């Protein structure tokens, strides 16, 4: 049974262009689904729509977001916030802005545990310490008392991961969690997310534009173009034989480490024209 089920979701900028066209996708309990597509395809928008953090200028025009059998869009805002807060978490893209610069790390991790789940401060703090250990932060006691600017980008992303897993959510939306980090740190962070995901059995909606990342972390995959899902496959099938010509071209455009001199393969004009006509974009 799928924990998250997005049905025919459409969204647009108020009085402007369409952002999401009839998007449907499912994330089963404990499953990792990758969301790929080029910049502006609407990958992050889906994640944000699920978590209820869409920018104010964006409105959902139709569709359903079923979380654990409840339609989030039908809930009043306060109930929706609590439902999402109790079962979902976010690993944001930019660790440099994702922690409040004027507050210490500790409360930023424990807030949710205390406020939403009603834990005691001490229990929440123990939990935070344990999780900081899990994300391989040395001296977690000291880190809890530090301010974000005292820590490196990689450290901050680890803290954000720890914070996301702290409340044992059923679903985590990872919004390009490695994009802002340099390549060596990226790999560690990916491993960490994958390991924690397996250990905690958390479902993951993994937004990325890196097919390499998808192949390592995800089981299912949705390819987006101009706000429309053009392919929905199991990852193994996708890499063996992509169903849609656009996703085949996207896969071909990935640089190969085995043949660095081959040069980059852009997505052919004809494929773009075809996919544009198909989704009805521009």
């Amino acid at each position, binding site marked *: 049974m799928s924990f998250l089920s997005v049905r025919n979701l459409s969204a647009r900028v108020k009085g402007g262009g369409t952002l999401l066209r009839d998007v449907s996708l499912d994330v089963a309990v404990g499953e990792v689904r990758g969301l790929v597509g080029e910049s502006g395809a609407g990958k992050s928008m889906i994640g*944000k729509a699920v*978590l*209820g*953090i869409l920018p*104010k200028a964006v409105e959902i025009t139709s569709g359903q977001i079923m979380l654990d059998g409840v339609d989030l869009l039908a809930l009043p805002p*306060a109930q929706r*916030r*609590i439902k*999402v*807060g*109790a079962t*979902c*978490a*976010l690993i*944001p*893209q*930019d660790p440099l*802005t*994702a*922690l*409040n*610069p*004027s*507050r210490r790390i500790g409360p*930023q991790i424990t*807030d*949710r545990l205390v*406020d*939403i789940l009603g834990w005691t401060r001490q229990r929440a703090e123990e939990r935070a310490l344990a999780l900081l250990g899990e994300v391989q932060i040395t001296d977690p006691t000291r880190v809890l008392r530090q*301010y974000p*600017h005292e820590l490196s980008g990689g450290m901050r992303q680890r803290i*954000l991961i720890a*914070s996301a897993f702290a409340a044992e959510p059923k679903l985590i939306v990872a919004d390009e969690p490695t994009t802002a980090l340099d390549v060596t740190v990226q790999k560690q962070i990916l491993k960490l997310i994958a390991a924690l995901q397996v250990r905690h059995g958390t479902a993951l909606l993994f937004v990325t534009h890196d097919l390499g990342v998808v192949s390592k972390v995800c089981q299912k995959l949705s390819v987006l173009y101009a706000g429309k899902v053009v392919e929905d496959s199991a990852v193994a099938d996708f890499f063996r034989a992509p169903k849609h010509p656009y996703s085949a071209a996207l896969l071909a455009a990935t640089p190969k480490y085995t043949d660095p001199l081959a040069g980059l393969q852009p997505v052919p004009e004809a494929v773009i024209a075809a996919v544009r006509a198909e989704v009805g974009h521009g």
Partner: protein
Amino acid sequence: MADGRFEVRRKAGLRLWLSAAWLILLVIVALFAPYLAPKDPLEQDLFAGRLPPFWMQGADAAFLLGTDSLGRDVLSRIIFGTRIALTVAVISASLTCLVGAALGLLAGFYRGWADVVVSRFIDIWMAFPPVLFSILLIAVIGPGLFSIIAAIVVIDWTRFARVIRAEAMTQGAMDYVASARVAGRGRFGILLREILPNVLPIIVVLLTLEMGIAVIVEAILSFVNLSISTDDPTWGGMISEGRTSIHQAWWVLVFPLITLFLTVLSFSQLGEGLKNRFDPVLR
């Protein structure tokens, strides 16, 4: 690496302490004015008019900074003027800050119609020439301490609202706000616990700047005789009176002017210094 940062820090510290020292001195003077002032600030002595300050020829040692044309002691008048200046500065700046910051946060964080209303209001408000506006206002509600404070609040809240609105907007777009929302915190909770601490350094800076501005506005209004009753010693009133006799008795003008200048400078420098202390990244 360490030397550059050290240099910056030390300068900021010196600035902070010097301005704080001057302001603390003013507070003490204002509190104990009756004990510190050598004379009654209102006592006139026409035979002792326009006496020069103590180091000049013909000075009376009893009047350290000389007397004005009515024979009132300049030093005592400055000391009692401190009371009015500080009262106006603290009360009006705090009220201005409260009104402006609240509206700014509302507009910048909640956006939507709240933003539209507040922003248009600010635009309209700022189209009035401020000094004229305040003179008009006081002409209508009548002079007095309360009127001055009201005038400053009514005119200057836009200064806070604009800056804090912009800052709240920037902070509101940060990922940590999104994270807090996902974590189930309500809008108002986010405003208080996530946004406000990050806007606070700016609020403090603006508040101290506003205190300086309030002192100036009070002086301007005294200068055009719209402040407290003309008998009460105010720095602006003294400057205004001193202007008429500048060729015969410059000290009546210059001493209150120096006091005013140092006070306004101290307020603005205090703000800068505090900002550096408050800012978690610079700290």
